[in-house]
Structure formats: C-alpha cells, structure tokens
C-alpha cells in the first residue's frame, strides 16, 4: 500500500487578464511507507503547491491523489479525517507559524484538542504526558511549555514547530523548507533532529527544499521539479551521482561550498 499516489496531477491558478499559471503540470509520483522524499526545484517550480496538495490544503485542478490507496476527497469528512490523523506539517518560518500569544505548551498540544482527531481515536488522549514526550524528543526543556515563542531563538522555535507536528503521532511528516530560515550553524542541529526523529518513529517524510545538499542529507528519494513539471525522480544517490537533466546538475552546482575557494 502506497502512502500517496500522485496521478497526473495539475494545479493551475487563474488570472483574469492572461492565461492561467500552471503551477503543477501532469505530475506522477508514488510515495511508499517509510520513504524519505525530497522535493527540489527553484522558486516557482511548484514544490510548495505539491506539498499543499499532499497535506489536503488545496485540491488538484486535474488528476487525482490517492492516500493509502483511496482517492483523497477533501469534500468527504471521513477521507479528510483519515488524512489529518496521520499527516502533519512543518513550515519554513517558525516566526510566523507559531501563534505569538499562545504558550508553547498550548501550541504543541493544540492538535490533540481537535475534535476531528479525537473522534478518530488515533491521537494520544493524555495531552500532558504527550507534551512532555515530544518536548524530550525535540530536545527542549519541559519548562519551555510555560513560555512564549518569542522567548526562543529561531532554531528552538523550529523545534517547537516539530514538536507540535509530532504530538498527534503522525505516520507522515510533510516539511516545507524546514531549515532555510535558519542560520547555517543552526541548520545542522535541526537536520540531525529530523533525521533522528524520522528514524526512531519510522515516519514517512516529504521535505521540500531548494537546497539539494540539505535534501541529500535527510532523504533517500528525490523528485526534481521545474516550472511545474517533474524533471526526474528516484533514489537520491542515483540522481545525485548521475543526474538525468542539466537542470538537476545546475541545482546541485549552485549550492555554495566552502571548498570552492580554498581546497
């Protein structure tokens, strides 16, 4: 059983004056349980649009997405509940994705208070215990729960966002550029954390990034998007060692490396 099957999915955004923008153009992708997918491409290549479709935040203009072998139908409550109970999201900028007026404890346990998820019976019921578990898992002190997001640095805020995503015990983690708003030096900590968590909890991961070196470190599969089209996809090391397209090679070459100047 695949986690997601993306079948000839297109998403276009209408414009009154001119022809619509084709954000995704007939994309096919199958994501199996336990795989760690990286979705890479330039800005505007459709990476985030694809992630939003997988998260059930948007629906395709054409084609269909199957979630655990059943068509994903955002109009159907049971279909949506199944998706929401097992898929969680981490966004790019923890500054804007955390409510500044809520304490960290309330932010992290908010998904557990969702009536929909509680009814599904798949989320932990002891919120207090789960809060402590996920705070431990992401390496934050338990007293962090009483504080507000602004009291934390960018890297710590991203840990809070990850803790919130993990709280309802998802099977699938979707991450949209989880480290690109962070300092290079903080990036390593968060990537280590994501790697450990995905392994320990046996999560399926789909991570969007413009940086192939980040994806290479966390993922085992990669999908390369350009202007809404899937350029290539497959096992990461193959795509990395022998990119089938010049575009993939250019993406890789664009990553600034320290060694370029002084090795």
């Amino acid at each position: 059983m695949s986690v997601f099957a993306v079948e000839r999915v297109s998403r276009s955004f209408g414009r009154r004056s001119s022809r619509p923008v084709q954000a995704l153009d007939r994309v096919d992708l199958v994501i199996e349980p336990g795989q760690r997918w990286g979705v890479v491409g330039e800005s505007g290549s459709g990476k985030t649009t694809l992630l939003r479709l997988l998260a059930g935040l948007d629906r395709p203009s054409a084609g269909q997405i199957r979630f655990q072998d059943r068509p994903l139908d955002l109009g159907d409550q049971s279909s949506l509940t199944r998706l929401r109970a097992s898929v969680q999201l981490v966004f790019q900028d923890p500054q804007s994705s955390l409510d500044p007026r809520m304490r960290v404890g309330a932010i992290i346990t908010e998904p557990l208070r969702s009536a929909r998820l509680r009814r599904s019976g798949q989320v932990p019921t002891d919120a207090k215990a789960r809060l402590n578990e996920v705070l431990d898992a992401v390496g934050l002190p338990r007293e962090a729960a009483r504080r507000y997001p602004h009291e934390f640095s960018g890297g710590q805020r991203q840990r809070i966002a990850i803790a919130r995503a993990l709280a309802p015990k998802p099977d699938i983690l979707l991450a949209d550029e989880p480290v690109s708003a962070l300092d290079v030096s903080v990036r390593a900590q968060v990537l280590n954390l994501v790697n450990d968590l995905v392994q320990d909890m046996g999560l399926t991961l789909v991570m969007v990034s413009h940086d192939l070196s980040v994806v290479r470190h966390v993922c085992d599969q990669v999908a390369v998007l350009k202007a809404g089209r899937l350029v290539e996809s497959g096992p990461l090391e193959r795509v990395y060692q022998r990119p089938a397209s010049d575009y993939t090679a250019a993406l890789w070459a664009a990553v600034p490396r320290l060694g370029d100047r002084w090795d």
Partner: protein
Amino acid sequence: MSLLEVNHLNVWFGRGRRPAVRDLSFTIEPGQRLGLIGQSGSGKSVTALAVMGLLAENAQVTGSVRFDGRRLLGAKEAELAQLRGRDLTMVFQEPMTALDPTMKVGRQVAEVIRLHEESSGRETRRRVIEMLDRVGLPNPGRITDAFPHQLSGGQRQRVVLAMALMLGPRLIIADEPTTALDVTVQAQVLELLDAQLAAHQAACLFISHDLAVVARVCQQVMVMLDGAVVESGPVRQVLSQPVHPYTQGLIATARLDLATPGARLPTVEDFYAGGQR
C-alpha cells in the same frame, strides 16, 4: 587613510541589557571586501546599522566611525543623508521590505538620483534603464514600469542592488543580501555583486551567517560572537586554520557537502560549548 575606520564601537539597547556590540574595531580599505559572519543575534546587523547611522533611537552608541576621514557617529542627519545613497549604500536581506510596494520600480531607482543630483526626467530615465540593464534585468524598460510584487525575489534583489550601485558608491554594506533567495538565484546574485564591486572598485562590508557565501565574495573575514569579534584575517587563513573554537564550529557546520548522507552533522556546540542559542 582607510575608507572606513571603526574604533571601539559599543552599542546598547536599554539599561541593564548586555551590549549588542562590544568594543568593536576594524578598518576597510578602498576596494576591500570584508565579510562579517556570526549566528543570528551576534551583532552583525547592529554593526551595519551603526555605520549607516540607521540605529533605532533607543540605541546608545559610543566609540567612533569614520568614513573617508569624516566622523559619522554623532554627525548631523543632513550630513549623513548626503553620504547615504551616494558614497555609502546598503543592500538589505529582504527586497520586498526594502522596496516600497506602492511605487513603480523605475521611480524608486530614480529617487536615488533625484535626492543627490540635478538630472532631467529623460536623462534620469535613461540612467535608470541603463543601470537595470547592467544588473542583468531582462527588458529593463518594462521593469521600470512594474511594481515590486510583479517581480520575482531575484529580480527584486537586482533592483535593490541597482539602487545601491546607481551613484557609484565607495562602500556598499550588504546585510544578508542573498539569504532570502533560493540557491540558483543566490549564485547569480553573488556573481553579479562580485562583478559590479570589481567594476566600480567599490569596497564592501558583507554580512552573512553563511561562510560559504562570504568566502565567495570577500578577501577578509571577521567572526562575531555575542557582540564581539573573536577572530579575523584573510578568508583563506581563517577558513583553513581557524583558531577560535567557535570559528571551527562554524566551518564544520558549513560543510554539509562533506558529510556522509544520513550521518550526524557536526554542530557548533561540538566545538564551542558557549555557542548554545
């Protein structure tokens, strides 16, 4: 005489808080490019704003900043306004906030000229289009009539760069100019900055948290930690023989390309215990 001379600069915000910048001294020679690196909160941007005279009013500043021999710190606003945008310019991190969303791009670039020189409308427009062309914007005539939101992030940063280069500055302060851009666009903008600095023989104070980016543009580098400089020197030397454990940590974290995929990445804390933030 150095182009920029910063001596014993201290900056505080509010009483009882630890200084944002502590006893900072450095010089930049004409045409020289100095990289300033450190984690968020280390005082990099405050240093840049102090040099530009753009700090918030609650900032207390001591020490001296001299540009081409002229005192900047404590200078009258009118005197600073004369220098800013002409001899001393700045490129900010986020081009969408640096540009006025309600004003067409061409007018914003033209404003730099109008504030400092007498220039006819037609002549100004010609110079604006020429500069937009020089920073590699396709179809510059069309770009002048566009609003910022109609451009991509990379195009907007090229516009900001055009404004900074317009009047042939002698020093450009670039504060994380490519951090908001994706890697392909970043590579293009860095190449452009490199070429334009060389063409204008302009000096640059280049601020970034990314060592690899600094190494791409600068000859000299200064490492900042908690408001103070812990290490400085030629880029090559600092990167190949870092002395301070914090610098060693920064270098290790920047080398993602050397890490075995999936293996634990080194962090700054592996090298420098005080670096937790």
